[in-house]
């Protein structure tokens, strides 16, 4: 199958998947905070205050989630680049032999 190379989900699928999740979190967390503040206000009768506080908390949560997600992706990328059989050793060897040839 096209999307499964060598019995693994292909890299494009994982990459697209990871990146496409980030934006939504920011918006949705803000709206959840807004809704929580609005209904708590209606319940407790403290009209504008809880709405404002929870909206701010929602925005903070959204940014924190995006930050966490970015850190998770960064860690994944680091783990991949320092994995076995890749990286600078091969390049160095090639470059060295090239220079020796000249």
């Amino acid at each position, binding site marked *: *199958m096209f*999307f*499964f190379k060598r*019995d*693994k*989900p292909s890299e494009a*699928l*994982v990459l*697209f*998947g*990871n990146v*496409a*999740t980030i934006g*939504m*979190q920011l918006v*949705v*967390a803000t*709206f*959840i*905070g807004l809704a*929580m503040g609005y209904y708590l206000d209606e319940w407790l009768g403290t009209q504008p205050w809880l709405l404002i506080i*929870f909206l701010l*908390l*929602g925005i*903070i*949560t*959204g940014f*924190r*989630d995006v930050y966490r997600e970015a850190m*998770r992706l960064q860690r994944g990328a680091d783990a991949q680049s320092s994995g076995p059989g890749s990286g600078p050793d091969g390049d160095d060897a090639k470059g060295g032999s090239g220079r020796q040839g000249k």
Partner: protein
Amino acid sequence: MAAGLAHPLTYSVILDQQLGLHLPPHVYYMWLAMIILFSCGFILRGRLQLVPGGLQNLFETVIGGLEDFVVLNIGEEGRKVFPFLCAMFIFILVMNYIGLIPGCDAATANVNTNAAMALSVFVYYNFIGIKKWGFGYIKHFMGPVIFLAPLMLILEIVSHLARPLSLTLRLFGNIRGEEIVLVLLFILAPVLGTLPMYFLFILGKTIQAFIFFMLTMIYLKGSLEHAH
């Protein structure tokens, strides 16, 4: 095709008139996906072979690949929750692809289907977390520093409530948008316009199913690993 655009005639409308059940279209297309998957399962169970061929090969590739991916990410505990994750992925994938058949609508192009799935994901990962950690599951909501715990509790609750909503809206928005684009392009240029879009949308629908699967996996990982 997208429902709501000047009442397109889909197979489900005709079926509904015949049966007289007055059910919305996405219910019929969900049943169709279930019928396809169940019959695949029964056919394959009847003739499992040591050397797989054809359909069994396809399913072994997909399921084996996903299982490796889950175990790589969650660890050995991932095998316990893998059936749920894999069922989600294949079910959403089949429902998405049904939307590409002319005269059919994707069941995931309706908010209700996605909301039901996202809520079951929400309940499931919290259930797994409570089952594993007992009352200590609340530490997942407290953050690292004890005097910040009340603030972190509110932030985590907002964050956890945002999860099912974002799962629902992402899947719904993408699939519904693709269905509407297909209908509009079909109106503009009947076959030539839609055919190239099929390649893009096969990719898009697979990615959306995979995103749902992957996010569920990340949430389960979060509830299974130790609170930090």
